[in-house]
């Protein structure tokens, strides 16, 4: 379903060229739970955002159901991010002046076409994540755990096939972390969504059925998702 073929990302500056990713080859099947680990600066987030269509690789291919993302226009990449991918970020990135309920509807409102059922969908998602009584609260009125749950509800707004989580527990204490990881596992096991999670935490890393480890932009371990070159 998701394939990375010799993906390299290099950033050039006056000081020289820095390789964030080097020759990454992965094959991730639908319904997988993949964790990506590695030291700081190893290219974990770059890899995640490349899969999410936010970073275009310098060379190589990123395929989603056979379509090379590198060939898509900006508009089609935006549609891919909006409809196929749900992002859960470390710092939640909620819109500060929108309520939990409205934040959940943002991806829906960005989708072209019908605008009906947004409210019902958003309520159902927040209800599922235990935020039925916090719908009208602004982000600053919510605890960090609740904010991350709103971010997960938002990620599910357009019923995406893939959830990309960038250190979703990075700002949370162990109890809240366990709570969020449990939600992600449910999304994978009960909904059948593919979850790809970047994490520093060994406990979180153990949740994945497949594991990728990066060092200096190179894939040094790809347990169950390695692709032949």
């Amino acid at each position, binding site marked *: 379903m998701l394939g990375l073929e010799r993906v390299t990302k290099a950033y050039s500056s006056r000081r020289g060229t820095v390789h964030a990713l080097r020759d990454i080859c992965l094959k991730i099947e639908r319904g997988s739970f993949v964790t990506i680990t590695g030291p700081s600066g190893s290219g974990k987030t770059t890899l995640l955002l490349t899969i999410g269509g936010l970073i275009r690789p310098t060379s190589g291919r990123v395929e989603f159901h056979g379509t090379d993302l590198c060939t898509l226009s900006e508009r089609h990449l935006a549609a891919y991010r909006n409809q196929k991918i749900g992002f859960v*970020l470390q710092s939640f990135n909620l819109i500060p002046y929108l309520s939990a309920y409205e934040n959940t509807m943002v991806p829906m409102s*960005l989708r072209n076409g019908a605008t009906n059922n947004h*409210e019902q969908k958003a309520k159902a998602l927040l209800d599922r994540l235990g935020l039925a009584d916090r719908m009208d609260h602004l982000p600053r009125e919510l605890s960090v755990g609740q904010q991350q749950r709103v971010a997960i509800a938002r990620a599910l707004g357009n019923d995406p096939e893939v959830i990309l989580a960038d250190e979703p527990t990075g700002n949370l204490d162990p109890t809240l972390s366990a709570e969020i990881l449990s939600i992600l596992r449910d999304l994978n096991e009960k909904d059948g969504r593919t979850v790809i999670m970047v994490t520093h935490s060994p406990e979180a890393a153990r949740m994945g059925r497949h594991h990728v480890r990066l060092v200096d932009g190179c894939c040094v371990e790809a347990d169950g998702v390695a692709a032949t070159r």
Partner: protein
Amino acid sequence: MRLRTLLWKELWLRKSRMMSGLLAITLGIAVIVGIQSVTAVSERAVKIKLDNLGANILVLPQAASVDDYYTADIDAPTFPEDYVERVATSMLPGVDNLSPKLTRRVKVGDVPVILTGILPANELASKPIWQSAGLAGAELAAACGPSPEVNKGRSFVDEKLQRKAIDSLAPGELLVGSVVGQRLNLKDGSKVVIQGREFTTARVLPETGTIDDDRIYAHLHVVQDLLGTGSQVSAIEIMGCCSAISDGLLGKLRNILPDTRITTIGQIVNTQIETNRLMAKVSLILLVIIFLVGAISIANYMWANVEERRREIGTLLTLGATRGSVYRLFLAKATILGLLGGIGGYLLGTFSALVLGPQLAGLAVEPVPVYLAWSLLFAVAIALLGSWYPTYRATRLDPASILQEF
């Protein structure tokens, strides 16, 4: 929910930020409108003051000299009064206050005085031929000058008679210069006999320090009868718009009246042209400065607003917004703030000018409705421009880079 909900929510829930932005735009526009309103009135006031210097073009008979005009030589040549109509019906732009005069030396008792026949403005306006040409009354006002009503309304009326049209003068009445009045011991209402005809002194004019002080003014046609000159005049004084004079008004007049000598009263014309040039330069400099200050103030706020929302832009792009929709969102906000700020700025600027104009500059300022349209246009344009560039920069960045900033 639609994307525009974000716009309204942001404006509504960040009221203090919206108000600070609105204030920046409103004050920027208010400064521009206020100063421009006062400047426009100041320019008009200066023009009126300049017009009060009187006529600046003299039409004399071909053989006459300017000296003849001042000394009222008894043998000075004349030309037909019909020439006034030629000029008036030519509809030359920049010609106002045509004033035909016949001047001769006469004696009142044993005292020699200069008698000048003048045609009051109300008679000029009521000439049938001018009425049929659509030139009656206010139509005679020079295209570039203020109307007499404007002059009066602004309390800039000059009491001096010199080279100015007189509104009305009955055939049996005289206007008497101050020096002649003293010499003949005349007061308002005094009777005077000139060449065997009795006149009433309508008014002894205040001292002007000019040749007017030594003259007695009567109705032109009465003077013509009295002196037996027929329908002749010795000069036509014209108040010409100085920009029209620069554009060759004298040449055009010479084409209409080829057998006359047409000259400008140099000191007046030079003063008018120089002052107008100076005013134009000062106004331009002032306009550029206040436009820059206003524009920078508005653009600064919009720029800061977009910069502080970079994270939001990154989030929206990550969630699937296109660059176009982010543009629309931010530029729609700029348009709304521009419109509100434009209206508010116009009202505040106009109100300030109305209140402060008379107090600080002694000028009665009136609202200028067309400034509302300019305010809206300018405020929206600057708000859009101020938002466009930072939005452009933010949307050009990798959303990944913006996300990684935070």
